[in-house]
């Protein structure tokens, strides 16, 4: 399938990559920092810091403060209003609930005060909801009434999903894009600038041998680096891969191929080392924003959604997400796999068109 020349050159590229320890570490740094951050916060967001001033000694105030304190959404600090206000101004508290002295059920409405710095509070909705729910349940208890309705949330896909489960496939896709483009685009420009390509092309090596070797070596590099991140995510963050690893690695390989081809094109367009960076950035940056790596494309403005869905990184990230989160097989034909086939053809066509050997080498 591969000639011994291609295999040897691929081995050389691998050797060069792994001997550059700094580059190996830097490539792993960004995803590992993410995993580390999630490990630190346990995959959940930080609790809201809530100050509680209880001026009342009634049973109801006790029940209310216990209910608020038991809610995991909050980290409650009890204290004097003046102290807590100071903390609120310093930003150490997000909001303060003040229970009035006469907080009781005396046939008239008791009023709670909520103090906050409106410019800082994004979680107001969540705070209000918990307070309302707590008050409602106290009221029901006192009035001895059963709730008329209850809302039970069920995931139609019948599995629990955390943000890290959503994020990881996107992160892997982003990582493979960067590794692939650096492997083809940046390397081509650097090899050309230093005359290394010219030196290679006085030998009988053919352009396809060179491309195959880079594709082989880079695919292995991407698979290895992704395995490290994936392994750590599984071991430390308890991330579950619903589909088969074969499908997942197959998808990674296809994604690597697409981005390597696109990287060769970018490297061919850029004539200098100075030019390649802005060219690559203007290619990767919109993808980082619009490809649903960090949040779903469906949460973006509707006008950009069709564009966002069509980006190669979106296609790969969705493909990986389908496999990792929904257990889809790589062989199932759907819009994502269709998108991948289209991008493979498009990138391969472009690389054969743009990557003119003699111009590249000279």
């Amino acid at each position: 399938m591969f000639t011994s020349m291609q295999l040897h050159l691929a081995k050389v590229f691998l050797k060069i990559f792994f001997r550059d320890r700094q580059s190996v570490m830097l490539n792993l740094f960004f995803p590992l920092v993410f995993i580390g951050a999630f490990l630190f916060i346990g995959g959940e967001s930080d609790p809201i810091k809530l100050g509680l001033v209880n001026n009342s000694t009634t049973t109801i105030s006790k029940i209310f403060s216990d209910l608020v304190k038991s809610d995991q959404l909050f980290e409650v600090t009890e204290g004097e209003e003046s102290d807590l206000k100071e903390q609120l101004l310093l930003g150490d508290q997000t909001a303060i609930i003040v229970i009035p002295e006469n907080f009781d059920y005396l046939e008239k409405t008791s009023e709670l005060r909520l103090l906050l710095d409106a410019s800082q509070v994004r979680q107001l909705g969540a705070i209000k909801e918990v307070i309302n729910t707590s008050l409602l349940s106290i009221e029901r208890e006192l009035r001895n009434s059963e709730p008329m309705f209850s809302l039970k949330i069920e995931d139609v896909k019948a599995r629990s999903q955390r943000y890290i489960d959503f994020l990881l496939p996107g992160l892997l896709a982003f990582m493979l894009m960067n590794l692939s483009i650096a492997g083809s685009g940046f390397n081509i420009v650097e090899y050309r600038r230093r005359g290394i390509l010219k030196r290679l092309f006085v030998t009988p090596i053919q352009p396809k041998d060179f491309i195959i070797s880079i594709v082989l070596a880079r695919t292995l590099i991407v698979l290895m680096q992704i395995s490290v991140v994936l392994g750590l995510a599984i071991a430390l963050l308890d991330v579950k891969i619903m589909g088969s690893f074969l499908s997942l690695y197959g998808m990674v390989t296809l994604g690597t191929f697409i981005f390597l081809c696109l990287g060769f094109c970018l490297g061919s367009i850029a004539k200098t080392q100075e030019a390649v960076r802005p060219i690559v950035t203007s290619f990767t940056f919109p993808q980082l924003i619009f490809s649903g790596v960090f949040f779903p494309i469906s949460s973006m403005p509707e006008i950009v959604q069709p564009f966002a869905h069509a980006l190669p990184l979106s296609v790969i990230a969705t493909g990986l997400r389908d496999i990792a989160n929904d257990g889809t097989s790589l062989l199932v034909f759907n819009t994502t796999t269709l998108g991948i086939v289209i991008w493979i053809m498009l990138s391969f066509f472009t690389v054969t068109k743009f990557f003119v050997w003699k111009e590249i080498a000279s």
Partner: protein
Amino acid sequence: MNIIEVKDLLKSYPQPGNKKETFNAVDGITFNIKVGEIYGILGPNGAGKTTTLEMLEGLNDIDGGSALINGLDVSTNVFKVKEIIGVQLQANEYFDKLNLTELLILFGKLYSEEIDSDDLLKKVDLLGKSNAKPEELSGGQKQRFSIACALVNNPKILFLDEPTTGLDPQAKRNLWNLAKELNAAGMTIVLTTHNMEEAEYLCNRIAIMDRGKLIAEDTPQGLIQKYAPEPQHLASQGNIEDVFLALTGHTLRD
């Protein structure tokens, strides 16, 4: 017997500053090189020496005329030609992180050949440096290593593009001796140079190029006889540099 036959070779490029016009970097040159010769191409900067060499090496397209190497047309058999030639380029950069042995083995593989790297390094007097990286070598050592890379396929013809530029006298002499040794072993050598002493010392025949044209071609002695400055009876006191300046003038070129 000719191993290289070049006829009306032409290379044109867009005129700098006016892309619609073209100029001929190599303007219809014709020459033959015999088996076992050391053939020098002399010329000022921009004369077309390197472009000529690059067309023969298959690095640059031939726009007109023909070039046969060992009977093979370079235009149509470029990969077969590359198998029988060895090339030392002006720029000597290699992949990072690889030592001399690894680089030689890599170049051998590009010709699908298993090579004895130590034997090659010994040939260019670099056996003690087999584990060194190219960037750790001196200028002369780099040039010798570059020749070792060009020898991995045991080529019939060795192309050297300004091999001694920037070298000190010792390194230069050392490289000339290496070229002589390789030639004595039967290798045809084609070299470009600015160094008149080099051309005179090494070459069996010299071609002088200027502005894309071949303006003179002969043995060093023949050129001195023909072109060295007057008076004729003192010609034996002139040298190839006198010939070169007489033919290409004293105007500075970049």
